[in-house]
């Protein structure tokens, strides 16, 4: 090239200058061929570097985001595929996913917390089956939600809701862990005094109330839908049970702090960790919070499942969270990433909320890596209780949005009508007879079925 430059720059030699153009073209051609060869050789690497997977995360806690970012960086290092993590609050995940699809720039992987959302996206052909990944492991009950034999999501968290209670206050008052609604109401009443309240039960038109306050009803064996997705909440079997549940919640309401219709997840955590309430419904997050904010409460805290009315059944309210892979041009890369992530980083991610993310994969409970987390080790009794929720045959696992014989959008619609929380409000705050409240609620549910 130096020679060529010299020729080009030497304007004192006309003959050469006439040939200058030819030489230049030849050189340019050579350079182009060389460049193309170089590009062809290096193309896979360059192309791989440019590949980007967009991951919509709906676990906004600092540790969970950090765990995903660490995983993304590690994956980029070994595969040269970039994984961009965007984080939203859980309530926004589905709408953001929908918007990204509608805008023509879909996320490649997303987090979903409603079976109905998985169903709608799978039905619209927007998801990729994850059978190969899912079939590698054994899973707990009521977590995979297959659609026509295909598993479209990879769960990471059961998100059950159970009750926590103050063991020290129980001891002071000589109370026993309740096994019936009556005992629960009496215990809550006994612990309500001097600005302290017996129990926090959210009662608003929100997900918090439907996650935290319906467990008693499930424990009594109430079913909302039959095997044909017909509403059976007000049939002769279920209506008396729902009425009794409404009356029980009304009886317990004087033992709750004011403002329960406004209470959200954080409200309950704050009320329990602040010592304002003696009972609080939650998953493992509550233990993590009091470990962090109120360590003196850790040894004073016990837990039990929601009791039924007669002391025969017990239940937890279902939650669940999982990932889906979207049907995008990057689906193959996304599947590769998910395969790597679920084998190599799944436990690291679970450790970002060690007690709250209750593993859906059964092998994790026996995995020394998972067991080695200090909080998992320290709270071995809680972990055994959590594992027992999956293995015991006498535990009822229910939630509004998973009612019915299989996953479908209809229970999701029922969830979003908040008819049952309105029923509670009608009985507790508006003095409506329980029977009428069940009728009003059932009518509202039928409008969306």
């Amino acid at each position: 090239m130096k020679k060529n430059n010299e020729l080009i720059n030497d304007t004192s030699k006309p003959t050469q200058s006439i040939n200058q153009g030819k030489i230049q073209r030849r050189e340019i051609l050579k350079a182009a061929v060389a460049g193309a060869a170089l590009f062809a050789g290096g193309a896979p690497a360059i192309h791989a570097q440019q590949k980007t997977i967009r991951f919509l995360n709906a676990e906004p806690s600092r540790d969970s985001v950090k765990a995903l970012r660490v995983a993304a960086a590690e994956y980029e290092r070994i595969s040269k595929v970039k994984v961009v993590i965007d984080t939203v609050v859980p309530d926004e995940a589905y709408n953001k996913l929908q918007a990204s699809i509608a805008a023509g720039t879909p996320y490649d992987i997303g987090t979903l917390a409603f079976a109905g959302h998985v169903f709608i996206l799978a039905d619209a052909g927007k998801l990729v089956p994850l059978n190969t990944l899912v079939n590698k492991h054994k899973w707990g009950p009521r977590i995979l939600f297959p659609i026509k034999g295909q598993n479209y999501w990879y769960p990471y968290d059961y998100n059950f809701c159970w009750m926590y209670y103050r063991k020290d206050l129980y001891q002071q008052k000589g109370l026993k862990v309740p096994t019936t609604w009556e005992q629960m109401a009496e215990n809550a009443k006994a612990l309500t005094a001097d600005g302290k309240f017996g129990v926090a039960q959210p009662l608003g038109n929100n997900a918090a109330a439907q996650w935290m306050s319906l467990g008693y009803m499930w424990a009594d064996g109430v079913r909302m839908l039959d095997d044909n997705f017909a509403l059976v909440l007000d049939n002769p079997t279920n209506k008396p049970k729902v009425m009794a549940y409404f009356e029980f919640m009304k009886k317990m309401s004087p033992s709750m702090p004011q403002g329960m219709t406004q209470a959200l997840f954080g409200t309950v955590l704050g009320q329990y960790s602040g010592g304002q309430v003696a009972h609080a419904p939650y998953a493992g997050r509550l233990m993590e919070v009091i470990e962090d904010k109120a360590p003196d409460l850790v040894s004073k805290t016990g837990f039990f499942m929601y009791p039924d009315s007669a002391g025969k059944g017990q239940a937890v309210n279902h939650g669940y969270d999982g990932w889906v892979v979207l049907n995008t041009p990057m689906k193959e890369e996304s599947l590769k990433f998910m395969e790597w992530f679920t084998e190599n980083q799944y436990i690291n991610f679970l450790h970002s909320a060690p007690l709250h993310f209750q593993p859906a994969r059964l092998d994790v409970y026996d995995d020394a890596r998972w067991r080695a987390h200090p909080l998992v080790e320290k709270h071995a009794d809680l972990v055994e209780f959590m594992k027992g929720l999956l293995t015991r045959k006498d535990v009822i696992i229910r939630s509004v949005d998973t009612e019915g014989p299989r996953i479908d959008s209809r229970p999701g619609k029922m969830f979003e009508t908040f008819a049952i929380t309105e029923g509670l409000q009608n009985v507790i705050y508006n003095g409506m007879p329980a029977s009428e409240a069940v009728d009003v609620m059932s009518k509202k549910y039928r409008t969306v079925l």
Partner: protein
Amino acid sequence: MQGFRTPSDKVLKWAFIASVSVVLLLILLPVLHAIQLSFYHSESFVSNKNWVGIGNYVRILNEIIFWKALSVGLIFGCLTIILQVCLGIAFALFLDRNFPGIPIIRGLVILPYLLPTVVVALAFQWILDGTLGLFTLWSEQLGMGRPSWFENPYLAMAVVIVASVWTWTPFVTVSFLAALQTIPKSLYESAKVDGAGMWARFWHVTIPMLLPMLMVIILLRSIWMFNKFDIIWLLTKGGPSSATEHLPILAYRRAFLQYDVGGGAAVATLSFLLLSLLILVYFYYYPLEEKGGSH
């Protein structure tokens, strides 16, 4: 367009066309898309759409919840507008006087309007918190117990109305204050000479002179309050028992939460049509140009 002859006119013409195009793109297209969606059944924005004609409208109009939401919207809209206008005029009359510190007070009056709605909602939630809220504690100290601000349907409605009035009255105040300052003092002096007292001057001079502004304010506030979503959603999410759920919240709930995009679009379209009808009736009885021109 015949008037656009000079080069600067041509610039003006293209600026006009550009701005109209932007308006069409950002407003008309989404509106038309929403109307189009209302004729389809779809569970999400990415699902297949099935043509149902006016099926969504028939279904929505047969639901009690639609009529309840409409009545909630009318109650919320009317009460907030009446209170904003009455308080706005009263504050404007007060601020129209000259006394030491008036510029500072005039500046402070606009403050609630400058606050983001989310801040206002959080402030009200804390003030009315069932356990620690200032108003809750005062109420208890006065022997009235702890009011169930957000559990009682009437109190919940009162809360969203008060929060809205508190936030948007400053806009009305400033508008009326500007209008008040354009009223010639000679009119008041003449009325005074004719023996008109304070009330007579208010009813026969101030109010007629404020009428054009009053009409504009009522029109604007009606549109804004009827469509007001944020403050209600942030404070009550339409509860308790749908007591504060008006049409915008119902539309949002249907489209984004209850997997009924067509139903939500139908509610939004009906709301749009009702508001348009209301405005047409309003203009029929109070044509702005005539009223404005008469003064």
